[in-house]
């Protein structure tokens, strides 16, 4: 398996997910190519986050299939990274958090130092390198989580509501960061319930509602003319959940 080989496209075929007798996701089918920034949009409880976890392989679908272009689970894991809504940072310095991810990733020790520095610089955290990760502010923590994910040079970066708990300034910083990462060739797949954010970041939209995928369209089309009633209501800001 060449390290430059691509794991995309990602294909969901009639994926369903059931827990506790409830069907949380039903009959989800789509395909993601490399390139466009994909935003999974929808109201709370639509199953966006669940879809992301399924894609990232943290949980298994109860029906249907999820396929990448590679079947090697270790290779797949090494080419993806995920930033959680509330990322767990290890109880060590910011730099050590990134170094840890790199060491798990199998990066040789002599390369790690430069890559840790690069990741800190990219996320604007250089001055905080030796600060314990747990005492950083919410925005800094989120940036560190992105730095940690980005440092391993993933082909696909999943982000689950990356700015849900942040103020506007911190949100802007994260969005700029996401754009810059996308520009350097990393596939972005993120969830959000924030319409403004979706408008600013999305190239294509996966619109989820009540456990179903209702629309999969280029962002411009989605915002100009949503095809479903639920999407229209969501864009109007009605509470549909």
């Amino acid at each position, binding site marked *: 398996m060449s390290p430059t080989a691509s794991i995309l496209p990602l294909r969901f075929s009639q994926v369903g997910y059931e827990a506790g007798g409830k069907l949380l996701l039903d009959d989800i089918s789509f395909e993601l190519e490399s390139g466009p920034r994909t935003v999974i949009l929808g109201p709370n409880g639509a199953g966006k986050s669940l879809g992301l*976890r399924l894609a*990232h392989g*943290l949980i298994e679908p109860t029906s249907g299939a999820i396929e990448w272009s590679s079947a090697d689970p*270790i290779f797949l*894991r*090494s080419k993806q*990274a*995920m930033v*959680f809504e509330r*990322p*767990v940072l*290890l*109880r*060590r310095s910011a730099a050590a958090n990134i170094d*840890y*991810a790199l060491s*798990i*990733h199998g990066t040789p020790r002599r390369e790690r130092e430069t890559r840790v520095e690069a990741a800190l610089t990219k996320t604007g955290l250089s001055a905080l390198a030796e600060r*314990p*990760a*747990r*005492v*950083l502010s919410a925005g800094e923590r989120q940036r560190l989580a992105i730095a940690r994910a980005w440092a391993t040079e993933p082909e696909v970066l999943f982000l689950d509501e990356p700015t849900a708990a942040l103020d506007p300034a911190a949100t802007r910083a994260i969005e700029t960061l996401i754009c810059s990462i996308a520009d350097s060739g990393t596939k972005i797949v993120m969830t959000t319930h924030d319409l403004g954010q979706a408008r600013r970041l999305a190239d294509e939209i996966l619109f989820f509602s009540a456990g179903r995928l209702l629309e999969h369209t280029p962002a411009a089309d989605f915002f100009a003319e949503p095809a479903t009633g639920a999407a229209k209501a969501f864009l109007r800001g009605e509470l549909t959940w």
Partner: protein
Amino acid sequence: MDDLLGAIQSAIRLMLTLDPDLIEIVALSFEVALLGLGLAALVGLPLGAALALFRFPGHNLAVVAMNALMGLPPVVVGLFVYLLLSRSGPLGSLGWLFTAKAMILAQFLLVLPIIAALTRQVVADLAQEYDEQLRSLGVGPARAIPTLLWDGRYQLVTTLLAGFGRAIGEVGAVLVVGGNIAHVSRVMTTAITLETSRGDLSLALALGIILLLMSLLVSAAATFASRLAATIDG
């Protein structure tokens, strides 16, 4: 009442005069307890973490057994080690019986289940929070053992203190395997037992007070240090 007052007086006197016999006994007590604890931690921390992170047939049984062993009477551990180390026992040729080594071995066995069981709990709680993040990073259960032990270090200080308390305060095991030999295997608790059997209750109680103060000191220092570090670390 006289005995109680006398006990406090002689405790103060013993400490102020730095009675050399007392210093020797206190030093041996701490040496034995800390080495037993250290060895138990070397084995018990990874063992407890592994129990929290790996699932295998008989896992529940192992957890229940570990929890039950926490309540093992020290004298039973003492007897077991005694029979093991007796010249007629399987490890008799080591010549460890009635030495500090036998006491360290006994306390190692006594403290091990406490460290392992409490560590398992700490790591299991932590693992719930870390599970998805670690799996996302590609961390398997084996690699997660040192990671979670290190991240749980402040809670684990309490675990180690529990083990230390058990070791420094027990008499049943060290009396049986150490023999309470003066200048060789006499520790605070066996000295207290000896003075009690001599009917010198106030001296026995004085030794008890000193033991309490010493353990209090250790516990306070460890708790304070870990609190401080935890505050700085977040």
